[in-house]
C-alpha cells in the first residue's frame, strides 16, 4: 500500500499548516484575502524564476543556479509584498470596521501574508515530490536515502513555517528600517535552501533537515519576541489556567 506513504507525507508536510489555517485564518475573511495575496506574490517570484530559467539555456541543468536566483526573486517579491501591504494598510484604515481592523492589526498582517507565501512555496516544493510517492516504488535505486519522501515532507513543513516567521521578522525590520535583521533573514533563506541541494546524495539528506529545524526554532523564538512575546508570557500562559 504505497498510498500510506503518500498520505503520511501529506500529513507531515501540511499538518501544521492545516492546524494554523483552521484555528487562526479560516474564521477571518480578511485574513483569507491576505493569505491569497501572499500566495500570489510567491507565485510571481516563481514566474520570474521560471522565465529566467527558460531564458538562460546553458544553465538549465544546473539546479544550484536556478535555486540561488529563485531565492533572490522570492526575497524581492517579499519586499514588494511589504510595500503593497504598507500602502493597503493605510488605505484600509477607513474602509474597515473595527472588528476587521483588529483581525489584521500589527503583526497579524505579516504573519498571515507570510503564511500564504510559505504555503504556496511548500505546496510547490513537495507536491512534485509526492506525486512520485504514490507507488509502487520507493526512492533508493540510485543510492538516495529511502526516507527521501518523509524528509522532503518535513522540509516542506519547515519551509512553510520558516517563511511565515521570516515574514514577521522582515516586515518588522522593513518598517523600522533595520538592516541587520533583513540581511540575516535573507542569508538564512539562502543557506537553508542551498542545503537542500544535498538531499539527493545518499547520506547528507539529514543535514538540511537538521539545519532547517534548528533555524526554525531560532526564527520562531525571534518572531515570538517581535510579536510581543517573552519567556515570562510563556510561563504565564502555562501557570494561568
Amino acid at each position, binding site marked *: 500500500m*504505497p498510498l500510506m*506513504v503518500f498520505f503520511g507525507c501529506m*500529513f*507531515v508536510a501540511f499538518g501544521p499548516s492545516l492546524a494554523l489555517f483552521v484555528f487562526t485564518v479560516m474564521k477571518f*475573511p480578511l485574513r*483569507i484575502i491576505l493569505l491569497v*495575496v501572499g500566495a500570489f506574490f510567491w507565485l510571481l517570484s516563481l514566474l520570474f524564476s521560471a522565465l529566467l530559467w527558460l531564458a538562460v539555456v546553458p544553465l538549465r541543468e544546473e539546479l544550484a543556479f536556478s535555486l540561488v536566483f529563485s531565492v533572490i526573486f522570492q526575497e524581492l517579491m517579499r519586499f514588494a509584498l511589504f510595500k503593497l501591504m504598507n500602502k493597503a494598510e493605510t488605505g484600509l484604515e477607513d474602509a474597515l470596521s473595527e472588528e476587521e481592523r483588529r483581525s489584521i492589526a500589527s503583526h497579524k498582517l505579516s504573519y498571515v501574508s507570510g503564511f500564504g507565501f510559505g504555503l504556496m512555496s511548500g*505546496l510547490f516544493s513537495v507536491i512534485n515530490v509526492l506525486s512520485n510517492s504514490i507507488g509502487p516504488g*520507493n526512492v*533508493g535505486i540510485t543510492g538516495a536515502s529511502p526516507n527521501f519522501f518523509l524528509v522532503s515532507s518535513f522540509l516542506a513543513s519547515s519551509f512553510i513555517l520558516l517563511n511565515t516567521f521570516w515574514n514577521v521578522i522582515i516586515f518588522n525590520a522593513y518598517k523600522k528600517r533595520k538592516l541587520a535583521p533583513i540581511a540575516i533573514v535573507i542569508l538564512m533563506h539562502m543557506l537553508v535552501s542551498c542545503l537542500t541541494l544535498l538531499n539527493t546524495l545518499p547520506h547528507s539528506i539529514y543535514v538540511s533537515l537538521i539545519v532547517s529545524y534548528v533555524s526554525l526554532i531560532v526564527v520562531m523564538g525571534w518572531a515570538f519576541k517581535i510579536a510581543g512575546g517573552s519567556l515570562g508570557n510563556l510561563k504565564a500562559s502555562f501557570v494561568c489556567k
Partner: protein
Amino acid sequence: MTYCKLMLKHTCNWKVSENVKLYRIVDYTIDYYGYGALPLPFEINCLNSCHRFMHIIMMSDLVLLMVITYLTSLSGKCFSQSSKVYSLVYQDFAEDTYDKCVRLLNGTHEIGCQSSTEGNTGILVHLNETAVLNKFLESGTRKHYVVLLESSLFERNIMLRLKAKENVQGVIVYEADNFYQRAWSPDLSCTSDRFGLYSNGSYGREYQECNNGAKLWNPLGDGITEESFPFPVFYMRSSSGRDRLINCYKDYNVPEAYPLCSVQMKSHMFGAVDSVTCTRRSNLQNSFTSVGYCDPLGGMNVVTSLQKMTSDVSSKKDSIILVSAALDSRSFMSSFTAPGADMATGFITLLGVANALGQLTKTQKLELSKNIMFILFDGEAFDHMGSTRMMYDMKNGDFPVNRDSEKTQPPPVNLTHVSHIFELGQLGYIRDGVWAHYNPISSKAVLNSVYDAINVLQNLSASVPVQNQSTGIGLVPSSLQTILQHRDVPGVVLTDYDDQFTNRQYFSRFDTLKNILSLRYNQNTTDEQIMDLLQPIAQNLSNIATAIAKMLYLIAGGSHTSTSPLDNITVDQNMMNDLLYCFLYNPNCDLFNEHLPLNSKANLSSISYRRYTSVYTGEVSDYAGISMNILASFTGEKLQNFTECLSKSDDQTVRYFNMNGNRSVAEGVCILSSTFATKALAFPLETKKLQENIAMYGVWTESRWTKTTFRLRLFLLQDELSQGMVLLAGLLVMLTSFATVYVLNEKAAILFNTGIV
C-alpha cells in the same frame, strides 16, 4: 455579510484544492487550457469590494498558475516522468531494448500475454539454472514475483509451471554471454494440422499426425506460441539492460531483505476471450466511439501471370500452372525479431524462377500452351490465411481481381483451370538435396502426372538431387493442403526435408540467416564478406531454381528442340545472392532500391524485414510490396512510353509499375505486368459471419493497445511496516500540531500581551 463570508470561505477552499488539481491536470495534458473550462465563479455578482478584490487576486493567481505550469510542462522537467525525483525512484528501460509478446485471438482461444491495466509488479528473482528454478517453485512464497529467466530455460513446460505458480507476475527472458543456441521451436509440433487436408473426417486418417502417433513434422516444437499467459513476457535484448537487472537482483535480493529490487511490467491488451467475442465487442463499441478491441490479422497475396492476361479470352480447363510460396512467418514475440529465414528461401527461389522465365521473349511466352502464375501467400503462418482466402475468392469468381462488370478485367481463374501446382517450402538446408512431396492418397491419374513432373525435375536437376518423399507419410504442412481440400489437382511441394523439418529452430527467434544457414558473422563483417558467405547457398538455390524453371517451361508446353530457349533458361547466381542478402540481411540494398516506386519517400531500413503478417490494412505490407515489385519487374514487359505509366488505367488486366530502376534515368523504369494483389484475410472477419465459420477456418485477430502500453521499470520496494510507520508519523504530526496550535491560539492574549486575536 453572512453571505459574503460564506462565499469567501467557499471560494478559498476551492482555490486551494484547484491549485492541486490544476497541477495534476497539467501533469498530463496542456490541452486543458484550450477548453477554457476553468470553473471561475464569474456569475457571482459581488456587491462587496472585498469580493471584487478577492476575485482579482484569485483570477490573477489562476492565470499565473497556468502560465507557470505551462512553462514548466513545456520544459518537461518538473512534472513529467523524466523529473529528477522520478529518476530517484525508477529506472526505465527504453521500449526498443526489449521485445514483447502480445495478445492474439483466434476463433476459439486467446493466446499471448498481457498485464493488468496498471502493469504487473513483483520482486525480481533470477532463475538461471534448473536447480534454482526448482527451488524457487517450491519455496518462493512472497506475494508477487517477476522472474528473470535465462534463455535456455525458456520453454513451454517451464513457462507453464511458472504460470501455475500464481504469484509469478511476469517473466523477462535474457541471454547470458556464453549463451548456447539450443534446438528449439516455439511452434506446434504438428504444425498447420488444424484446418489441414487430413483434419476432416476419415480422409487420410493415417496421416493425421498428432492423432495417430505418426512422425511429427516439427518434433522440436513445444507450441509455446499458442499458449496464453496471464502476465507479460518480455525478452531483454540489450546486454546492458540485462546486466542492470541481474546486478539489481544481486545487490538487493540476495539475501532477501527489504528494500527489495522489484520490476514493473506493463503490456495491457484490449482484446480478450476469442475473435468472435472481441469482434462483437468492437462492433458494439464502434457505434458510439472509434475505439475497438481487436483487429483482423491479414495482408495481401501477390499474384503474377507470366503471359499477359487479356479480357477477351476466358480461362480454359487445365491451362494454368500455379507456382506458390509463403511470404510470412511468426514467432512468440515479434516486435523486433525477423525469424523464418529457412521459410524465406522458398519465396526467394520462386523469385529466381520468375526471373529466369521472365527472360523469355514475348513470343516465346505466348507460344506456351499453359500459362504460369506465381503466387506469394501472406498470412500462411496463421492457419494458411492466404491460400484459404484464395480458394474462397476463386469460388466466388473474384480471383485474381474482384468482379466488376464496369471494368475491363482478366478472366476469373478457379481451380478447374489449374493443371499443376508447385509449391516451394523451406529450402535453406538444400545441400542435402530436395524432397518432392505430394498427397499420397490422390487419385491414380493425379498421382501419375505428379510422378511425371517429378521425373522431369529429376532429369533436369543434375547438381541438386531431387528425391521422392518416403512412403507412409502424408503431404507436408503446406498451402497445397488447403488447395487440395477443394479439388484433387496434381501438386508438388519442394522442401529441404523428408519426414521431419531439417530446420531445428522453426519460427523461433534464432531462425535467422545467422543460425539457420550457419553463417558466422558479427557487426564487423563487411558486406563483401556476407556476400561471400552467401555464395554456397545461393549457388544451390539457383541450381534448383534453374531446374524448376526448365521443368515449368516443359510442362507448360515449351518445345524441346535444338532451337528452343530451354538451354538458355538459367537463374543467375548473383541474383540469388542479392535476393538472399536483401531479404534476410539488409533491405537497404541496390536491388530493393531499384524496385521501389519512383520517387517514393520510403527509406529502407537496414534491419531485415520482420515478416509477421500483422493487422490487415488493405495495403500490401513492406515485405509483400517489395516482393510484388520485384516479381512484376521480373515477369513484366519493360515499356519505353512513360506517359502511359503515369496515367491511371481502367484496364484491370494489367498494371503499370513505375520504379526507380538503376537511377540512370530520371523517369526510372516502367513495367507493364499482369500482377495483382489479392486479400489474404479470413473472409468470416470480413463478412462478419464468425460463429458459423470458426470450425472450418482460422479467424485470427490481434488485440489493440496504445502507444503507452508497454513499460518496463526497475525500482526498490519498501516493506509494508515502514510504509505504515510513515503514515503513523504523519498522523502524529497532524495531531500534535492541531493540539499545539489550539492551545497557543487559546492563550494568544497572554502570549503576545494583546487583547483578543
